[in-house]
């Protein structure tokens, strides 16, 4: 383990300690309620970046994976009253399978066609769930939270802590992928898929692998949302807004490095929470649209790219 990794794990441990202390010290529910959403979007955006940033395959199916995560949890709760950790683990497994299927289905699709296919997939899955009576159909389903486990005082606090664990897990995985041969392979296939294939990079296998990892993390992030809202319905669980929000967060932060989506998710997530809006309200959609347009035009490499460019020109000026 080099010093960089030591610093990373110390940072992660500190983050969890702070979160843990917060759940013990702060009595008010609201910070957890709002913070949960931001943490959830960090996981989603980091997971998105593994496929969308490293490999350059723009996935509009975030809502499909998120929704499948939500409904895996709903199904398990309704069928056998499974505990939260089982819900999350099962959702991750289902997400990995779904990611595998998406990877195989879209094996030869590139660029815009991949994006369109993932939008299509979202609607197909949403419609299937809408027609699935057992989990409530179009009308949605109410869920009862089980009693909270100590040391937490409320269920939302516990969900907040669990989502924080998922953040650490997602970031650690994204960081590992970026620094290993997988990340280098994905980067090669992003820059030139044909050239990468010709020089022996197993592009198809890497692409499917990225789909699997990204899908598993997205579904895992979605699973606690069922208990968070105590309610699930297909049109909000599979709302296209999730896909575009996550895309915007990653693009705003910058997609080349795992820190990018974190920065983007915090920036956009906090803005949305400050405006105290829900995922489908108009103001939220307007903020989303304007930020997306603004950043794609003015800072195509995201905030990280922007910072690097500013640092670069300053260093260049001095030299």
């Amino acid at each position: 383990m080099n010093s960089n990794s030591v610093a990373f794990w110390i940072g992660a441990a500190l983050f969890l300690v702070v979160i843990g202390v917060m759940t013990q010290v702060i009595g008010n529910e609201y910070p957890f309620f709002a913070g949960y959403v931001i943490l959830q979007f960090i996981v989603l955006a980091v997971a998105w970046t593994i496929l969308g940033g490293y490999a350059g395959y723009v996935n509009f199916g975030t809502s499909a994976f998120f929704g499948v995560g939500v409904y895996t949890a709903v199904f398990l709760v309704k069928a056998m009253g499974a505990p939260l950790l089982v819900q999350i683990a099962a959702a991750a497994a289902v997400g990995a399978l779904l990611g595998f299927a998406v990877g195989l289905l879209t094996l030869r699709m590139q660029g815009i066609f991949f994006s369109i296919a993932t939008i299509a997939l979202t609607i197909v899955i949403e419609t299937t769930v809408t027609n699935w009576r057992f989990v409530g159909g179009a009308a949605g389903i109410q869920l009862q939270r089980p009693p909270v486990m100590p040391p937490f005082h409320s269920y939302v606090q516990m969900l907040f802590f669990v989502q924080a664990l998922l953040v650490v897990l997602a970031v650690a995985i994204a960081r590992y992928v970026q620094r290993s041969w997988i990340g280098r392979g994905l980067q090669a296939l992003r820059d030139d898929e044909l050239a990468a294939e010709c020089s022996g990079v197993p592009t198809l296998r890497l692409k499917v692998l990225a789909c699997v990892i990204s899908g598993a993390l997205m579904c895992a992030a979605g699973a606690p949302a069922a208990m968070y809202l105590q309610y699930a319905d297909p049109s909000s669980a599979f709302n296209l807004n999730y896909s575009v929000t996550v895309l915007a967060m990653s693009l705003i932060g910058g997609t080349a490095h795992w820190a990018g989506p974190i920065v983007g998710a915090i920036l956009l997530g906090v803005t949305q929470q400050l405006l105290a809006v829900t995922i489908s309200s108009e103001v939220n959609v307007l903020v989303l649209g304007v930020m997306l347009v603004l950043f794609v035009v003015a800072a195509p490499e995201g905030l990280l790219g922007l910072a690097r460019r500013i640092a670069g020109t300053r260093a260049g000026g001095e030299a």
Partner: protein
Amino acid sequence: MFSVDLLLNAVVLGVLLGCFYAAVSLGLSVSFGLLDVPHVAHPAVLILASYGVFFLNDSYDIDPLLAGLLITPLLFVFGLVAYRVYYETFEKRGSDAGVRGIAFLFGIAFIIEVLIILQFGVDQRSVTASYIGKAWRIGEMRIPARLIVAFAVASVLAILLTLYLSRTFMGRAIRAVAQDEEALRLMGANPVKIKQWAFGIATAVLGVAGALLIIVAPVEPTLDRAYIGRTFCVVVMAGLGSMTGTLIAAIILGVVESIVLSTVGASWAPAISFAMLLGVLAIRPQGLFGRLS
């Protein structure tokens, strides 16, 4: 339960519906099919046009089709400006323009959605005209007059656009720019100007298409999301850039939707176009009548 009459009825309605789908997809067939702009905001502009028609019909009692024609020049200019902006920000910079382009266009689509909500609210809106609500009876069959209007106008629109692209100088130039931009540049023509003009036309067509949309059924601000599936399904299935293909693909979609609607039920309707799109992308990405690449 299953009867020939019912099936025949579904097929006839499906063909009419399909022609209407062709009308709303023709613009995308030019912008995405010929110009390679991943125009996910196309359905949003379509809904915007519908609301424009609603406004003219509601405030000044203008016939919806005439209103559609009236806003066409506005849309044309909007298209010219929009392509210039898109070109300067994305295509000119080159690499991974498509990826950021589609994100940009999604942003635009969302902004349009919210502007419509702020101006007109989230309620469904519809127009009034003498032919809305009437129906033709042929034997057992009952065909709504608004679908026949949509069918007739859509056919005229498709024919006009096909003739424009194959007979006029500018139309041929547009097809040339789709085939080989570099060659055009070498011959001293300006491909950007031609593409800008083409994008203007692709947007202008939405005036009449938007009128048809609100004639066929009431519109609401978030309707564009359903039409992303329908329009892209039609254009990809047609094979990018083929106008006749667009008409045939749209009719196939219309008939399939209509049959599923009358047999399986309306709750599966949203998935049909997207499932067909997915199938086409996976099995035959060049479309049914694809141009060779």
